[in-house]
Each structure stands twice: as structure tokens, then as C-alpha cells.
């Protein structure tokens, strides 16, 4: 069991990145919130087993990834859509610009949602969370070369999907 004050600081620092990561993986805010809580609970309970050789972020995202993959399998067996593009809202002063941004944002979210789970996770971790390939390899339990392959394929797909906007 972890120290509660340290845990609270960790929750404050990582709940945003973890929630966004989980939401893009599962697509449903209610499920994402449930999985965020479960991730943080597991982190608290397993704090004593954490090995300092690994980055904290890699460890957190690994727990979240495993939970997301379990959820995706359960959703698949329940015949639910694995990942829908999350509904996002923009806050822009200029309505025309806001609408344009909203369109781009929706297209980007849809393109991300269309990626296979591992490719999507790799893109999120490298692009939004700034993790290195070695850290992503640790999160996904694959080799660094495999991460490179995942990102190359993801880039190709994203390019096809978002060509009209680029």
C-alpha cells in the first residue's frame, strides 16, 4: 500500500494524461472514468512492488493499457464497438474558426479511433505523452523494433485518413 499524500500528488499529475489515453482507447467517457479509477487503485495497491528502474509514466500507462485491452476484449465479446471517437468540445472565440477546428478535431479523433488498439496506443504515447520508443515498448510489452513498425503503419493509415486536411 502506498503513502496517501504521495498518491494524491500522483493522481493530480497523471489523471489527465491517463484519462485521455484511456478515453481514446475505449471511446466511452463512463467506461474511461471507471478504468481510470481502477488504474489508480491498482497503482496504489502495487506501489510497494514498483521498480524504480522503470519510469513512473511507463508503469502507469502499462497498467492502463492492460485494463483497456481487457475492456476491449470484453466489449468485443459483448458485441459492442471497441473504440468510438470520443465526443470532444472546443472553446474558441471565433465561431468560424471554432467550427473549422471542430471539424479537424472530429476527423483526427475518428482517424485515431479507426487505428488498431496497439497502433493507437503507440501514437498516443509518443505524440501526446512524449514517451520514448523504449518506454512505449515497456508499456506495450513489445520490442523497440515492433514499436517502430506500429508507428510506421499508424502513420501510413493516418495519412490516408487525413490527407484531405493536410
Amino acid at each position, binding site marked *: 500500500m502506498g503513502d496517501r499524500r504521495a498518491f494524491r500528488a500522483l493522481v493530480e499529475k497523471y489523471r489527465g494524461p491517463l*484519462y485521455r489515453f484511456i478515453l481514446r482507447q475505449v471511446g466511452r467517457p463512463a467506461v474511461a*472514468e471507471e478504468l481510470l479509477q481502477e488504474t489508480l487503485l491498482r497503482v*496504489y495497491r502495487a506501489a510497494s512492488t514498483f521498480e524504480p528502474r522503470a519510469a513512473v509514466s511507463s508503469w502507469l500507462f502499462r497498467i492502463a493499457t492492460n485494463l483497456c485491452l481487457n475492456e476491449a476484449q*470484453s466489449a468485443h465479446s459483448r458485441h459492442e464497438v471497441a473504440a468510438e471517437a470520443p465526443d470532444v468540445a472546443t472553446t474558441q472565440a471565433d465561431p468560424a474558426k471554432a467550427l473549422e477546428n471542430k471539424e*479537424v478535431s472530429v476527423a483526427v479523433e475518428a482517424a485515431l479511433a479507426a487505428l488498431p488498439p496497439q497502433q493507437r496506443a503507440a501514437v498516443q504515447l509518443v505524440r501526446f505523452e512524449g514517451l520514448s*520508443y523504449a518506454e512505449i515498448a515497456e508499456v506495450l510489452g513489445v520490442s523497440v523494433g515492433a514499436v517502430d513498425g506500429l508507428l*510506421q503503419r499508424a502513420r501510413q493509415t493516418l495519412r490516408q485518413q487525413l490527407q484531405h486536411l493536410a
Partner: protein
Amino acid sequence: MRCGISRRLISRYQDGELGNWRRRRLERHFESCLVCRAELEADKRIWALLDAAEVVEAPEVMSRLEGRLGEPETVAWRHSWRLAPIAYAAAVVLFAVAGSLGGVFVAARRQLPAEGAPDPEYAGFLEEIPPGMAPIVSMFQPERTP
């Protein structure tokens, strides 16, 4: 550097995953190859588009978590049901193996000759030996203690 290698390295170049030596060689290639430079630019534009992905606010979870921190760890029933078919299959295999092993053991016990009685298989074997060979075979017969 060849264009094929250059294209494969664009992804790692963009993500800052190349060492200095390779990065410089790739940059030199981009200076001389318009096609690869166009590939790089296209990749940059797509990567930049991802900035449009919305930064969604995370819900406040700490107050709800506080109440659960002291709870004992339990298996999430929502997911544990997936283990049930495996457990059933393992139990069936275990019973089948145990049953067949038990059957073999009981059958073997039934076929064992009584203490001191001649082994029927060995007796049958002796009957089939041609008469001239019997003295030789008898040399290899196990000695029986009285």
C-alpha cells in the same frame, strides 16, 4: 543513403529516435532528394494535425478513490467470468485423466496373478517354444524361492 532506407527512418527521425550520425546522414539525404523531403513534409503535416486532437478534462476521481483505498483487493467480476470456461475445461480434463488412470490401475490389479501362482503369460510363452529350445530357455528362467 538510399530512398528506401530514408523512408523507413522518417518516423524515427520525426520522433527524435535517431542517433546523431544517422540523423545527419538522413538530413544530408533530404537536402539532395526532393521526393524524400516531400515525404518528410507530408508526414510532418499529418503529425501536426494531431495537435487538433482535443485535450479533454479528466474527471475528479480522488474523492471517490479515497473511500476505496482501504477496501481489500477483489477480483473484478465483470472480467473474471472469462476465466470460467477455462476452469471448466481444466476440471473436465482433470477428471478424465484421473478416471482413465484409475481404470488402468484397477484393471492392472485384477490381472495380477495370485502370490506364488505361475505367471499365465510366461506359461503360455513356454508352451510355444519348440522342444529343442526348452533347455536353453530354462537357463534364463528366474529362480524361484521355495
